[in-house]
C-alpha cells in the first residue's frame, strides 16, 4: 500500500473538486479481442472457456467498463450487441433491459450467481447496481431456466465480483463528477493473506436528477443519493474446503417534493466449496435477500398522508450443487434447492408466502473430438402454480480451427408474480376501478357483490380463481463463429416463442361505470432476428468492434388478425377508418428493427494514455397504440425516430498510481422528443450530454 502524504493531498483534491476523474490502470489485454483466458461461469454453472461455448454469451470485462468510465450496470449493458436499455418514457426515469427483443420482466439478474429481487411492475432497475468492484459481467442470451428456473426466459445477466489475489492491500479510491451534479465516490479494498482474503467496497452516488419535461412542474428524476456497501470474505479452510461470504447493502433515498421514497436492498450470500476428490466436489450455498421500498406522499399543506405504499420482499434460498469430471471434457452437474419467498405489500391483504423446490442436472461432454454437447434440465415444483420442466440442449461443432457451428434449444418460464396472484387494489383516486390477483379474485368479486358494487359479471363465476399457468418460452439460437488472426466474428440467428403470457381482462363492470380487472394467460408473442458481432484488432494498440441486431417482434394473435383483415386504423387527418395491411403492423412496443454499436479503443502506452469512442444506434421504435385498435401500427402518432448516442472518453495515468479520465456521454446532445407528449408540454427522451471527470487512485 502506498498512501503517502502526497496521496492524501490527492484524496483531498478528489473529494473537494467535483471535476476530477480517473481511470484504472489495467493490463492491456481483454478489452475487446479474444483472450484464451476468458472464462465464464453463467452458461453452465461450471468454469468454461468463453471461446468454446455452444451458446451465445456476451462477456464484458472489467477493463472495458473502466475505460468507458461508466459506473452503473445499465450504462455498460446498453453498449452491447443485442442489448437495449429501453427508456420507459411514458413513466419517466425507469429503464428496462431488453435482450433479443425480450423485455426486462423476463431477464434474470444475478450477483455472483444468486438472483436479485425487487421489481417494480416487472422491471428491475439496473442503475441500482454499482459496478466498481467487479471482475466481469456475463450475459447469457436465450432461455436458461434449465439452470436458473423462473424468470430466465430471455437471458441471464450475472455480475461477477472481483476476488482478492494479492497479499498486499490493493484497491482504488475514486471520485467521478458528472453533469446533473452526479457525484460518485468509490472505495475498493482487497487483500489476500494466506488462507484469508477480504474485499470491501463502498460506493456513494448522489445527483440532482434531471427533467425531461421542461414546461412542467417537478422533475422527471428527483434528486437522490444512494449507498452501496459490499464486504466479502474468502477463507480456505483447507485445500479442499473453501468458504465464501458476502454481504451487500444498498440504500437509496429520493428527495421528492412532499413525502419520502426509500429503497433498500440487502443480500447475504454464503458458499462452501468442498472438493471430495480431484474430480468431484460439492458446492453448498445459502442466500438471503430482502428488498423493501417505502413510499409516502403527504399533503404539503396539512401533512395528511395521501399515499403510503410499502413493499417488502424476502427470498431465502439454500442450494446444493455437485460436479463430477469424468474427464477434462466430460462434466456432470447436479443440483437442488429450495426457495422461500415472502412479500408484504400495502396493496395486499396479507403477507404472501411462496415456496418451491427444484432439482437440475446437466451433462457437458464431447462425444467427438470436434463436437461438444451440453444437455440439461430442471424441474421446479411450486406451491402456487403448475410444476415446470425446463430442458435445454446445446451443441457446438468445430469445423476447423477457424470456423465453428453453434446451436441451442431451450425452454424458459416465469412464474406468475405476487401481483398477478394476490393484488387486491381499488384505485380510489384514479376512477375507482379494481384489480384482483388470481388467488383473490373470486373472494374479491364476492365482496364487491355483497356491497352491491357489481353491475354485471363479464366472466362465468365458475371460472374465477382458475389457476394461472407460468408464462413460458422456447428459444432457438443457431450460429456460426469465425476467428482468425486479428478478427473474431459471430453470427447468430435467434427465435423465441412465448406462450401463456399473462394479460389483464375485465372480470366485471362496476356500478360506478368502472371495471374490475383480473389476470389471464392469453398472449403469445415471438421475437426473431439475427445478431452479428465483429471484433478486430486493427493495430497493436487499436481495438475495433461492431455489432448489429435485426429484430422482428410480434404478437401472434394480432398478426393473424391483421392478416385476416380484421384490424383497422384511422386516418389521422380525416378520422376515416382504414383496413390495415400486414406491413402496417409495426410489432411490439419499444422494439427497434435495427440496433448497431461501434466501439474503438485506442492506447498510447508510452504516454500512459488511452481514448475510446463508442457509438450506439437504435432505429425507430413505437411507444403505444394511439388509435384504439390495440396494436402499434404506422398510423399511430407514437414513434420515436432512430437515434445514436455517441460516447467518448480519454484517460491518462500520472505518477503510476493516478489516473485521470475525462469524457462525454451522449456527446451529440441527443434529446429527442416523446411523441406521446401533449402539444404544449414537450417531453424529451434523453436529458442530453453528460460530461464527466474521474480521478482514480490505484494502489
Amino acid at each position: 500500500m502506498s498512501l503517502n502524504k502526497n496521496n492524501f493531498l490527492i484524496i483531498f483534491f478528489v473529494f473537494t473538486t467535483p471535476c476530477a476523474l480517473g481511470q484504472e490502470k489495467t493490463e492491456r489485454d481483454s478489452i475487446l479481442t479474444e483472450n484464451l483466458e476468458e472464462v465464464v461461469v453463467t452458461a453452465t454453472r461450471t468454469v468454461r472457456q468463453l471461446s468454446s461455448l455452444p451458446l451465445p454469451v456476451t462477456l464484458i470485462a472489467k477493463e472495458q467498463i473502466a475505460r468507458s468510465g461508466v459506473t452503473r450496470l445499465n450504462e455498460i449493458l446498453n453498449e452491447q450487441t443485442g442489448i437495449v436499455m429501453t427508456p420507459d418514457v411514458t413513466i419517466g426515469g425507469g429503464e428496462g433491459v431488453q435482450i433479443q427483443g425480450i423485455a426486462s420482466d423476463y431477464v434474470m439478474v444475478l450477483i455472483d450467481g444468486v438472483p436479485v429481487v425487487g421489481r417494480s411492475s416487472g422491471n428491475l432497475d439496473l442503475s441500482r447496481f454499482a459496478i466498481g468492484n467487479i471482475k466481469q459481467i456475463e450475459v447469457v442470451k436465450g432461455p436458461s431456466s434449465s439452470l436458473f428456473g423462473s424468470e430466465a426466459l430471455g437471458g441471464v445477466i450475472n455480475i461477477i465480483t472481483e476476488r482478492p489475489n494479492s497479499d498486499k492491500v490493493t484497491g482504488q479510491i475514486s471520485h467521478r463528477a458528472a453533469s446533473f451534479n452526479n457525484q460518485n465516490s468509490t472505495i475498493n479494498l482487497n487483500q489476500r493473506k494466506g488462507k484469508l482474503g477480504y474485499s470491501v467496497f463502498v460506493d456513494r452516488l448522489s445527483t440532482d436528477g434531471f427533467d425531461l419535461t421542461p414546461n412542467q412542474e417537478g422533475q422527471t428524476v428527483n434528486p437522490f443519493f444512494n449507498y452501496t456497501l459490499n464486504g466479502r470474505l474468502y477463507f480456505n479452510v483447507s485445500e479442499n474446503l473453501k468458504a465464501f461470504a458476502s454481504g451487500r447493502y444498498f440504500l437509496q433515498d429520493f428527495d421528492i417534493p412532499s413525502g419520502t421514497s426509500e429503497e433498500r436492498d440487502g443480500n447475504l450470500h454464503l458458499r462452501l466449496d468442498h472438493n471430495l476428490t480431484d474430480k468431484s466436489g460439492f458446492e453448498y450455498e445459502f442466500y438471503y435477500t430482502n428488498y423493501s421500498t417505502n413510499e409516502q406522499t403527504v399533503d404539503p399543506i396539512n401533512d395528511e398522508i395521501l399515499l403510503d405504499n410499502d413493499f417488502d420482499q424476502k427470498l431465502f434460498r439454500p442450494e446444493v450443487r455437485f460436479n463430477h469430471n469424468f474427464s477434462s471434457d466430460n462434466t456432470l452437474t447436479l443440483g437442488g434447492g429450495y426457495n422461500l419467498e415472502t412479500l408484504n405489500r400495502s396493496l395486499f391483504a396479507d403477507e404472501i408466502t411462496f415456496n418451491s423446490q427444484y432439482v437440475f442436472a446437466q451433462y457437458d461432454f464431447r462425444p467427438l473430438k470436434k463436437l461438444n454437447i451440453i444437455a440439461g434440465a430442471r424441474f421446479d415444483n411450486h406451491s402456487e402454480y403448475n410444476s415446470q420442466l425446463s430442458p435445454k440442449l446445446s451443441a457446438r461443432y468445430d469445423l476447423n480451427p477457424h470456423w465453428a457451428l453453434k446451436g441451442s434449444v431451450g425452454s424458459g418460464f416465469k412464474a406468475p408474480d405476487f401481483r398477478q396472484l394476490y393484488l387486491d387494489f381499488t384505485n380510489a383516486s384514479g376512477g375507482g376501478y379494481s384489480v384482483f390477483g388470481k388467488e383473490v379474485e373470486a373472494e374479491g368479486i364476492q365482496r364487491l357483490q355483497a356491497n352491491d358494487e357489481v353491475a354485471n359479471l363479464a366472466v362465468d363465476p365458475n371460472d374465477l380463481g382458475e389457476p394461472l399457468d407460468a408464462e413460458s418460452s422456447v428459444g432457438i439460437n443457431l450460429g456460426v463463429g469465425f476467428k482468425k488472426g486479428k478478427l473474431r466474428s459471430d453470427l447468430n440467428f435467434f427465435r423465441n416463442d412465448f406462450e401463456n403470457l399473462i394479460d389483464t381482462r375485465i372480470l366485471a363492470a362496476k356500478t360506478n361505470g368502472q371495471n374490475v380487472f383480473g389476470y389471464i394467460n392469453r398472449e403469445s408473442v415471438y421475437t426473431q432476428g439475427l445478431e452479428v458481432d465483429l471484433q478486430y484488432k486493427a493495430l497493436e494498440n487499436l481495438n475495433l468492434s461492431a455489432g448489429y441486431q435485426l429484430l422482428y417482434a410480434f404478437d401472434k394473435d394480432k398478426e393473424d388478425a391483421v392478416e385476416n383483415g380484421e384490424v383497422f386504423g384511422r386516418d389521422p387527418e380525416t378520422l376515416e377508418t382504414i383496413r390495415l395491411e400486414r406491413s402496417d403492423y409495426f410489432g411490439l412496443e419499444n422494439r427497434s428493427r435495427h440496433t448497431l454499436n461501434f466501439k474503438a479503443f485506442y492506447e498510447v502506452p508510452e504516454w500512459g494514455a488511452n481514448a475510446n469512442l463508442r457509438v450506439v444506434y437504435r432505429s425507430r421504435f413505437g411507444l403505444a397504440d394511439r388509435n384504439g385498435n390495440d396494436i402499434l401500427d404506422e398510423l399511430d402518432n407514437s414513434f420515436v425516430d432512430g437515434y445514436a448516442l455517441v460516447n467518448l472518453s480519454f484517460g491518462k495515468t500520472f505518477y503510476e498510481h493516478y489516473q485521470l479520465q475525462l469524457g462525454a456521454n451522449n456527446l451529440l446532445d441527443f434529446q429527442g422528443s416523446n411523441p406521446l407528449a401533449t402539444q404544449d408540454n414537450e417531453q424529451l427522451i434523453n436529458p442530453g450530454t453528460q460530461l464527466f471527470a474521474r480521478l482514480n487512485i490505484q494502489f
Partner: protein
Amino acid sequence: MKTTLKLFSLCTLLFAFMACSDDDGDTVAEFTVTAITPDSGTVGSEITITGTNFPDVSAINLTFGGVPATISSATSTQLVVTVPTGATSGAVTVSANGFTQDATTSFTVLANLVSGTMENLEAPQTGSQGEPAGGPFTKFSFETGAVTDSDTEWDIAFRGTTIAVNGGTVTGTNDEPARNGNGGAAIETGLFAEVTSAAGLTFEVDADGAFAIPTGSGEGWYNYNPATFTLSPIPGRVLVFRTHDGRYAKVEILSYYRDAPAVPDPFMDESRMYTFNYVYNPNEGETNLAAN
C-alpha cells in the same frame, strides 16, 4: 354443355315461333306487365319490370304514381327504369300504342337513407370516482338526427362511455331512462361502407346487469390506453342499431373529445363529447344500410 345445347335449341325454337307469329298479323300485339323487382325502392334506384311484347322504347310511357320515369334499357320482355323524383307509392303504369297496363303489384317508394354526422354530443356523467355513475343520459333520435328530451321517441342514449338503447330493460345503474321502444344493437367489424345491411344480424337489448353495447375497454366501442390516458373508438367497430320504432341505422364513433381532434390531449380536450357518423334507413323494417 348439355344444358347450353338445350337452351340454344329452346331459343331457336322460340325465335322461330315468334318469327312465325310476327308474320301472322299486322296489328300491334297487346303487351303484358308481369312483375316489378324489387317492389320497393328509393328515388333514383333502378327497378326492373318484366312482361311480354314490350314495344320499342320510344313508344313507351312509364309512370310511378303518375310521374313519368326514364327507361334506361329495354327489350321486348324487360324494362329497366329509374324511380323518378317525386314518385309516389302506388301503381306502376306502362302505356304504349294506346294500351295501358298497370303492374300486378303496386310499388312502394322508399324514403332515402339519411347520412349524417353528429358533432359534439355531450354525454356528461356524475360519480364514477369510486362512486356509482349517475346523471341523465343524453338521448338521440335518428329520425331527427338530433338530441331529444322525449321519453319515448329516442333510439340511443349516452352517458360517459356508456351507450344505452331504447329496447329491453334498465340495467340497474342510477338515473337510466325507461326503455319503452323496440331498440337493439349489434356490433360489426369492418369499414363503415362495408356494413350494407342489418339483415341477419342478432340485435341485443339492454338487460338487467348488461348493456347491449358492452362497457369497458376493448369490450364494446372503445379502447382506453392507460399509458396515454386516452380513450379511442376502436377503428373498424360499426354499431348497428334497431331504432325504438323498428328502423335500422349504423353508427361509427369518431371521437370522444370535443371537436374530434386527430390526436386528443386527454388533459386539455374536453371528453364525454361524441362525434359520430351515421346512416339511417327511415323505412320501417328496411334493412338496407348501403349509403349512396
